[in-house]
């Protein structure tokens, strides 16, 4: 008898076991939307260090939180802010100003060049935009050269290959067929570039439901699936909930206390209350409270 097809569903602890000190991790989503926060909080809870964190393009406060918690050594992103919540991410700003963070400085075009090169198994891909800017100077990994066909000046953007991509999506079946609601931002590019991908999802749906609309399958086969309802909180989840502005402001206030007054008290309290004390995603949700969560409906 042929054995049954294997489920790829893991719990958040088993999935977090895949993440180790010093790895290159791509984190999906876009600014204040669609980040795999249950896994991001596990990274912090476990005290994982020296990560190279890739993206998203554009990044957001999810990455800032990892910087605040001391997990990040190197950062590949094009934007670090929270739109109207804060123009520049606070812990990022201070760490960058002090030269404590190794930044692969790029814009969105270059960011996807680097991921595409990794997916295509090429050492670099060319990009034209950026000539005449400071990028080749502040990012010496980007090399200017002359195109072999036309002779004109070009920039070679080196491949950046994540060991692991962790992305957030609305749905997946147990076999890793992921269906985003909405466009999925740049999550496909991360999935293609990374050695392995874990999708954290709002709901695990039957394979039959995936087959009803194969066009909606955005990632045709990830390596593991983690179910975490409200798992992008405090950020938005297309089709499910909007961002929790009040919570984001609480975080930004803690960030500003540090950035403007050097006071780490509020962020330590934030980390303790929301990340270290709750040991699981369910405990985190209890800390936030169901009343708050259900108020974050999409419309």
């Amino acid at each position, binding site marked *: 008898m042929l054995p049954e097809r294997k489920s790829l569903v893991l719990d958040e602890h088993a999935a977090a076991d895949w993440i180790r000190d010093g790895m290159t991790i791509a984190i999906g989503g876009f600014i204040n939307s669609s980040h795999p926060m249950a896994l991001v909080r596990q990274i912090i809870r476990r005290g994982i260090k020296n990560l190279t964190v890739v993206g998203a393009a554009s990044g957001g406060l999810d990455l800032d939180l990892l910087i605040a918690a001391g997990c990040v050594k190197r950062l590949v992103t094009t934007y*670090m802010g929270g739109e109207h919540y804060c123009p520049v991410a606070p812990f990022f700003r201070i760490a960058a100003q002090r030269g404590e963070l190794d930044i692969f400085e790029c814009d969105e075009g270059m960011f996807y060049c680097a991921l595409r090169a990794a997916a295509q198994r090429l050492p670099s891909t060319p990009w*034209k*935009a950026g000539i005449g*800017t*400071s*990028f080749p100077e502040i990012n010496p990994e980007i090399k200017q050269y002359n195109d072999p066909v036309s002779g004109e000046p070009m920039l070679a953007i080196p491949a950046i290959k994540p060991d692991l991509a962790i992305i957030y999506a609305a749905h997946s079946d147990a076999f890793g067929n992921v269906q985003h609601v909405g466009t*999925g931002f740049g999550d496909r590019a991360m999935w293609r570039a990374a050695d392995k991908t874990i999708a954290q999802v709002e709901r695990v749906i039957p394979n039959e439901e995936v087959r009803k609309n194969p066009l909606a399958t955005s990632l045709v086969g990830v390596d593991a699936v983690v179910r975490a309802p409200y798992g992008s909180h405090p950020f938005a989840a297309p089709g499910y909930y909007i961002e929790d502005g009040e919570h984001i402001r609480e975080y930004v206030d803690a960030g500003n206390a540090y950035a403007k007054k050097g006071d780490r008290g509020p962020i330590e309290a934030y980390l303790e209350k929301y990340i270290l004390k709750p040991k699981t995603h369910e405990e985190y949700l209890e800390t936030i409270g169901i009343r708050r969560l259900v108020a974050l409906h*999409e419309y």
Partner: protein
Amino acid sequence: MTGTTTLAKDFTIKELLATFVSRQVRDGERVAVGAGLHVPRAGILLAHLTRCPNVRLYVVMTFTNLTKEPRMEPFYTVYDYRPAKWAEGYIIHDDFQEDPRIVSDTFVVGGLQIDKFGNSNLIGVGKDYKHLDFRGPGAVGTLSMAHYVDRYYLFVQSHDKRILVDKCDFISTVGWGQGGSDGRKKLGIPGNGPVYCMTPLCIMDFDETTKHMRLKSVHPGVTVQQVVDNTGFALIIPKDVPVTEGPTEEELRTLRERIDIEGMLRK
């Protein structure tokens, strides 16, 4: 500027700027509606609802046409999923890199610093990249978009000497480089540099020969001296400096009743 061409009397500087933005849009183009900046967003929608029914609006990674929408629901961010209810089609974010022209024919770029040749800086302020005085948010997609679009515009929310500087500490998006009408050609990049720089005080353009920034018009109530005093480089001042033209009554009505319902531009 179809229909009623009677100019409105009572409007804010933000409404004036939105009107100026709207007049840069050409019908049939693709236009990215940057969500974070209220003024350009309102200006593009104003063009769409008054003159340009065939514009393809890029809104939060979807394409749409909003001419049949009686009122714009608010959308302020580039990640908000709610405007997807209007979508005619999606753009995956990394697709834009497959052909940036698909997203937009025009673009609006801001900056921590903008220099006299229209180069702009979103990276940071300071002399040493490793020890910046102020670290900015980063370039986002500005340099790639500005490189590929047909034309782009500079926009700042405050007109002062910290922002309008002689020379940017870092350049994230190249304007006219080191100046001259061949300033971009010399770098080996396409010729489509910044067209205007819009501020709360005035509109500036670039001298055809030197590509040095030049005063084009001042907003109602603003003096040329005020502009000069708040600009960190020697701006070219032509003999005649007109007052920036404001919205028509129809434009102002469309802006207030169909686009800027919450009055963000009236604050």
